[in-house]
């Protein structure tokens, strides 16, 4: 191997390119920019203002933050459902004046005051909610108007009661505890905010009602169409928002104990800036309590620092305006371009050199011939994509198709077909269990069983989550082929954990070990990943010793043997290290050897590109997917080999006239039945000199 190859190999081993794309698929990555902004703000102002994080300064800041972030949480709830609430500032002021008036002028008791204040805010929210939710008004203008009206009401109340409030004295320790007390080392308002944020977080992420809210914001139309009471959900968010704002006003009242004309003026802008800066999307569907808290901390620090630095009010609003603009711009551009960025970086090819391909010259084991030319065609034009075919002891043929069914061609002439079972996903590899049930790998769904009574049952659709991967690989995305060990354990391959069924060709560009082999044990009903980092593992076939199986890795062009039992347990040994094509399914032959389907042949250009990951990456970024250089999957052959890896026979259909596109083959009573994932037929070939009594189920489970 040349020096440059070695360097390249180490470069792609050391730098995990694929992680970037995987990180971008995560929802929590939305928080990255807000947290970055928060850290910047803390660093800048923390160093610009001496004693910024001193104890007294911090306690004061925290109390204000407690009240402020309640407002941001209120706004967040409404925004997540696709609305906006500009009346938060006025409702806050209303809560403040109502609480003070009730306590010091009307001399109500503490609990009654708290209840009445929150009810007041909820009432304002209800007005908003009915107007926006039920009457379908525009949220922005409606809440703008309620802002003005509520503010006017506050002004009227102020005129009436401000003197009385200033003169009155509230004799209640509980009241001062709200404003000055500590709980668990935190100022009370902070404690309350944290509790409320936690409740909101649980509501939004774990409960039905929270999902309704998110769904409504994500797509109001779809939410309506699936039967979510959209109007009620929207209305409810405003009510919650109003109640939270009033509560915040109450806390403010207990801290300062005075009502001024400027209480809460412009607070809606500050709260909006905080909510958007935290990453809550305008227009809904994306937001969380944590985002609201992050945003509120950032804005709180900014606004407070500006005051402490002694700049005029003009600079403060200039900064606030610019930050709001920047936050909205980032939000809009991020939402619009995230998937573009993702599609740019998700495909991350790696260095995957293959040894020079074996020749198919006349004197080679793979010599070209026309042995597949005389196949009989079954179901020509009547079946769409039989990836695998299998026959039972009554000689019926079972095959999956593209529309999610397993169809059965009836013996003896296979003219007639019937729907055997509807599964829904894409049936791929199949095998018979000892009890005669049909086991199927279903792309996108997992491992399934169709009993003799045609009942479709799920065996497993998840395995253990790998500890140190970024994408969640517990769910099966592309179960491909399977085989059954003598003790009933089912070993099946999952071709790739990074792509879905229909994107399987894209995985060939990466050629990384994205696949794995998984074992399902019906005795304990448990699923366990046993082999990881395989390059598109595909066909699996039990050897005759009952202790190992053969498996094919498609993009690595090799067949290996894995021992799951016996003295060599856990070992992987190469069987055919270098094939001239891309191997697919493996199945048993009647004479103790194995059949292997080559789905396509290697080409020098693709082989070369496997040494040039940069080239493949540029290709994936810059040109349309249908222009990409893919491995050939149209011309292949059937290979027979033995356990030592010796090639015994090769069958071609040159020109692909009678049976192009092979992904599997199954020997049964002296005939070979051939399937292809994008083919419209099943081929049947008479095998010269084969055991005409041999069947697959019998070879596995003996004569029944």
């Amino acid at each position, binding site marked *: 191997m040349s020096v440059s190859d070695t360097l390249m190999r180490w470069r792609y081993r050391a730098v995990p390119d694929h992680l970037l794309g995987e990180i971008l698929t995560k929802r929590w990555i939305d928080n990255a920019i807000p947290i970055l902004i928060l850290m910047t703000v803390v660093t800048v102002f923390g160093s610009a203002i001496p004693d910024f994080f001193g104890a007294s300064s911090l306690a004061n800041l925290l109390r204000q933050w407690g009240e402020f972030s309640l407002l941001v949480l209120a706004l967040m709830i409404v925004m997540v459902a696709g609305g906006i609430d500009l009346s938060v500032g006025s409702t806050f002021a209303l809560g403040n004046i109502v609480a003070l008036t009730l306590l010091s002028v009307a001399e109500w008791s503490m609990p009654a005051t708290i209840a009445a204040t929150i009810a007041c805010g909820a009432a304002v929210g209800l007005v908003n909610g009915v*107007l926006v939710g039920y009457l379908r008004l525009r949220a922005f203008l409606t809440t703008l108007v309620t802002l003005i009206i509520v503010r006017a009401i506050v002004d009227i109340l102020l005129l009436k009661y401000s003197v009385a409030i200033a003169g009155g004295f509230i004799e209640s320790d509980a009241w001062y505890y709200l404003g000055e007390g500590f709980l668990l080392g935190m100022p009370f308002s902070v404690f309350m905010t944290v509790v409320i944020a936690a409740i909101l977080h649980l509501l939004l992420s774990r409960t039905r009602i929270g999902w309704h809210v998110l769904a409504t914001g994500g797509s109001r139309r779809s939410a309506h169409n699936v039967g979510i009471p959209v109007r009620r959900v929207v209305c409810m968010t405003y009510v919650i928002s109003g109640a939270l704002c009033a509560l915040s006003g109450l806390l403010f009242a207990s801290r300062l104990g005075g009502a001024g004309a400027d209480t809460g003026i412009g607070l809606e*802008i500050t709260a909006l800036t905080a909510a*958007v800066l935290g990453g809550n999307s305008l227009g809904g569907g994306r937001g969380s309590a944590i985002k609201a808290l992050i945003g509120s901390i950032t804005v709180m620090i900014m606004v407070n620092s500006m005051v402490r630095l002694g700049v005029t009010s003009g600079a403060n609003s200039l900064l606030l305006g610019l930050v709001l603009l920047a936050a*909205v711009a980032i939000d809009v551009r991020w939402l619009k371009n995230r998937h573009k960025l993702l599609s740019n970086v998700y495909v991350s090819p790696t260095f995957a050199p293959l040894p020079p391909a074996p020749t198919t010259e006349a004197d080679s084991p793979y010599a070209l011939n026309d042995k597949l030319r005389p196949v009989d065609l079954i179901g020509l034009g009547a079946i769409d994509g039989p990836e695998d075919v299998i026959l039972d002891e009554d000689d019926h043929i079972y095959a999956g198709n593209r529309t999610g069914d397993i169809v059965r061609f009836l013996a003896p002439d296979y003219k007639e077909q019937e729907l055997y079972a509807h599964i829904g996903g894409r049936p791929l590899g199949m095998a018979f269990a000892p009890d005669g049930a049909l086991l199927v790998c279903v792309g996108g769904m997992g491992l399934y069983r169709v009993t003799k009574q045609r009942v479709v049952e799920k065996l497993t659709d998840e395995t253990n989550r790998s500890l140190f991967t970024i994408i969640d690989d517990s769910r099966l995305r592309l179960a491909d082929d399977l085989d059954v060990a003598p003790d009933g354990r089912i070993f099946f391959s999952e071709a790739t954990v990074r792509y879905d069924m229909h994107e399987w060709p894209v995985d060939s560009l990466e050629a990384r070990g994205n696949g794995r082999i998984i074992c399902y044990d019906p005795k304990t009903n448990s699923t366990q990943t046993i082999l990881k980092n395989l390059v598109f593992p595909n066909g699996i076939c039990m050897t005759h010793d009952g202790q190992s199986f053969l498996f094919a890795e498609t993009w690595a062009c090799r067949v290996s043997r894995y021992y799951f039992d016996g003295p060599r347990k856990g070992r992987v040994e190469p069987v055919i290290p270098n094939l001239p094509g891309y191997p697919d399914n493996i199945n048993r032959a009647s004479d103790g050897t194995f059949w292997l389907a080559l789905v396509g042949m290697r080409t020098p250009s693709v082989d070369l590109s496997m040494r040039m990951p940069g080239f493949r990456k540029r290709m994936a970024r810059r040109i349309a997917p249908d222009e990409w250089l893919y491995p050939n999957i149209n011309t292949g052959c059937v290979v027979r080999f033995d356990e030592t890896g010796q090639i015994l026979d090769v069958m071609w259909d040159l020109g692909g006239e009678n049976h192009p596109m092979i992904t599997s083959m199954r020997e049964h009573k002296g005939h070979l039945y051939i399937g292809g994932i994008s083919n419209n037929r099943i081929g049947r070939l008479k095998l010269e000199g084969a055991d005409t009594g041999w069947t697959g189920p019998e070879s596995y489970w003996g004569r029944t």
Partner: protein
Amino acid sequence: MQGLGRLSQEKIVFGLAVLLCIGFAVMLPGFLTTSNLLNLVRSVSILGILGVAMGLVVIGRGIDLSLVALMAISVAWTLQLVASGMSLPQAVALGLAFSLVAGMINGILIAYVEIPAIFATLAMGIAIYGFGRYFLFTLDVIYMPESAQALQWIGQGSLLGIPVPIFAFAAVCLVATLFLRWTTYGRYLRAVGDNLPAARITGIPARPIITLQYMISSLIGFAAGLVTAGSIASMNTRVANSTMVYDVILVVVLGGIGLSGGRGNIRNVVVGTLLIGVLLNGMTIMNIQYTLQNVIKGVILLTAIVIDTVLNPRDEQTAQQGDI
């Protein structure tokens, strides 16, 4: 509902204005005099001019919440420049340029960066006010210097016995109507407001048109600011933080220009202005407290939006996502 459908909102509002007029004329002595009526129109003409600016933007499916802030800051800067010795035309030119640049930034943010108009202009309004207060002047109120007396005529003079602001309002209305009806760009603006994707597909330069509409609105806003400054001989920059911009929206929505864009005419602005003028005038004569006036205006605006929604219902199936 059918009957309401045929009765357009414009007609309803006009009828309401006439009814209010009759009601006030009967109940309030001194309402139906020439001087009071002239005073009424004069007092709302600034609101009307701003309404035309907002109306154009709303027809183009936008909204300009920075209108009043921009007006206050640009005109206040003009006055400040004149006070510091600059000649009047030069100062006005600079103020106008400032106004247009700010309008262009609005437009670029909305058309090219694709920030929703409501948020872009809301944030720009705050930023413009902050910019003016921090960089341009330190006082809240900028008084008109002696050398700018020429401006006073616009605000306080009269022609043929009719106050000049009324002429200004009429002129702005006329030009805007002509622009909307007879010029290519006016028609483009309506097309963009009616259906942005369709307009873009037919080859209309949608983004430049959107930018243009905010520049026009800042231009008209500047004109309104000059009239304001002329009539009270000063410019109070605090007006940027007041609810005035909502009054402007009230005029537009009340007149019947749908917020979903593409509908309405300058005529609607005139009708809306008339109703608000009558209302404010009547309430002032009746000596209703300012805060209560705000409540009443708010309730009327809410009613107007409700009627707008009932007449132009938004469907769950066709409503646009994120359209708030």
